[in-house]
């Protein structure tokens, strides 16, 4: 039986087409998913992301615990409300999940993890706390719903629903910061490459908030648009672009691994250092299809007879009006490649991610082709 968010009945009322996502019955679109994509790039859209899991970690030992649990370093979090993107690794360096951790105070951090991994993540965190004998309380906040309001007009639209003092505080948030606004937690984060907020709020308030945002012109958007937006923005999807069998260095996530200071002993560190020392680590890159067709995960990348890797994600980019994807390829893969699509080889280019930020194309196709 698929799990349902508190907004499930509203999605059906709004005419959503529902699909299974990580065991949850979620809206994929409410009409045209390409139109929903454009709404977010040009104005504002709202997504139900209540299937994601909010975990509060509290206690005196919380900073020490997270410093060991996560590949990024929570020591970077000094200002209350500051957020950090990190992977949580297993001992082999494989990615158990990617998450955002917010620093609220010295005894309280909040973590948001993926829907499909929530149960395994919670079990892993509790087992490590017990193993390391750290006194932390790990609480799954099932009482909270989570909405993502994204797009150039999103922050103003959401802020208009807040009290005067909270409104000012929310609009003053810098990127990757959050603050408490009464019973809500409002963060300037997202998964679309646009400005906007992610809001955690009591479940009962999710539906009136959604309706109020719709009334203010914010379009209901499904997971379909969320996927094409994150692809354009060069953001990984757990389960596609990384998983427990792949480490962050071969998933485009080296920037999220804090190997300094060298004496911080986090889970997976030894495996990552060994992988780095051995060299030959594959890399994750953007792919742009030059001809007609659609890139999809698992299509193979070739240059002449040599296979260099495969696509991890692929779809159609509504902003660029062509097909884009991510591929994991050998370090020495040339930029001009061919992709095998149903037995046909189609020309494609490897490009640096992201493809689109804040509504604008932001990559260059190098004029001088060379082996990178």
């Amino acid at each position, binding site marked *: 039986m698929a799990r349902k968010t508190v907004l499930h009945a509203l999605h059906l009322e709004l005419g959503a*087409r529902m699909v299974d996502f990580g065991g949850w019955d979620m809206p*994929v*679109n409410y009409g045209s*998913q*390409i139109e929903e994509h454009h709404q977010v790039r040009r104005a504002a859209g709202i997504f139900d992301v209540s299937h994601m899991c909010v975990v509060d970690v509290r206690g005196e030992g919380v900073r020490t615990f997270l410093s060991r649990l996560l590949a990024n370093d929570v020591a970077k979090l000094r200002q209350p409300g500051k957020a950090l993107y990190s992977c949580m690794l297993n001992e082999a360096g494989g990615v158990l999940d990617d998450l955002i951790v917010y620093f609220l105070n010295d005894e309280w951090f909040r973590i948001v993890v993926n829907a499909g991994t929530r149960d395994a993540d919670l079990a892993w965190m509790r087992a490590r706390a017990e193993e390391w004998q750290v006194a932390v309380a790990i609480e799954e906040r099932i009482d909270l719903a989570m909405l993502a309001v994204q797009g150039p007009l999103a922050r103003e639209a959401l802020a208009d629903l807040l009290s005067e003092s909270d409104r000012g505080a929310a609009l003053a948030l810098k990127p990757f910061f959050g603050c408490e606004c009464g019973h809500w937690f409002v963060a300037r984060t997202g998964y679309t490459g646009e400005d906007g907020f992610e809001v955690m709020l009591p479940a009962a308030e999710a539906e009136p908030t959604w309706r109020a945002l719709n009334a203010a012109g914010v379009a209901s958007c499904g997971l*379909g648009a969320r996927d094409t937006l994150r692809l354009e923005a060069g953001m990984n999807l757990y389960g596609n672009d990384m998983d427990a069998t792949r480490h962050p260095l071969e998933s485009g996530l080296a920037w999220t691994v804090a190997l300094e200071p060298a004496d911080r002993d986090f889970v997976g560190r030894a495996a990552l250092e060994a992988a780095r020392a051995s060299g030959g680590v594959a890399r994750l890159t953007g792919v742009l299809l030059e001809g007609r067709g659609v890139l999809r995960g698992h299509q193979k990348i070739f240059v002449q007879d040599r296979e260099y890797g495969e696509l991890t994600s692929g*779809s159609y980019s509504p902003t660029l009006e062509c097909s884009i994807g991510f591929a994991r390829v050998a370090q020495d893969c040339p930029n001009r490649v061919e992709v095998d699509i*149903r037995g046909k080889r189609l020309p494609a280019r490897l490009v640096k991610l992201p493809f689109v930020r804040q509504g604008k194309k932001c990559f260059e196709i190098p004029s001088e082709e060379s082996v990178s």
Partner: protein
Amino acid sequence: MSQVPAELKYAKSHEWVRVLSDGRVEIGITDHAQSALGDLVFVDIPEVGRELAAGEACAVVESVKAASDVYTPIAGRVVESNAELATAPEQVNQDCYGSGWLLRLEPASADELAGLLSAEAYTELLAAQGN
């Protein structure tokens, strides 16, 4: 509620067939199929002259979400494919029974048409599938 024009014939795999005045047949995907697929962004249609067996995968329609095969409901030779869809695949979403047709066949045998579903039978099939 999906549109199911009364004058067309249907296949269980959600294609429709229209018999043209010259005896050739036009094939496309149903309203239910286009709606389930979502926004189409690419259509791969067979070359003119190709001989198709009944039930053979003859085209691929790709939405933002996924690629899906289209099966010809009857056997025949491809005499025309809808070139407009190369640059405007969204016509399949906008007008699946009209400008969004995929291909035209010279049928191998007119008898095969009798084995296809009527609009009524296809509507019942959709209802039985929970649509």
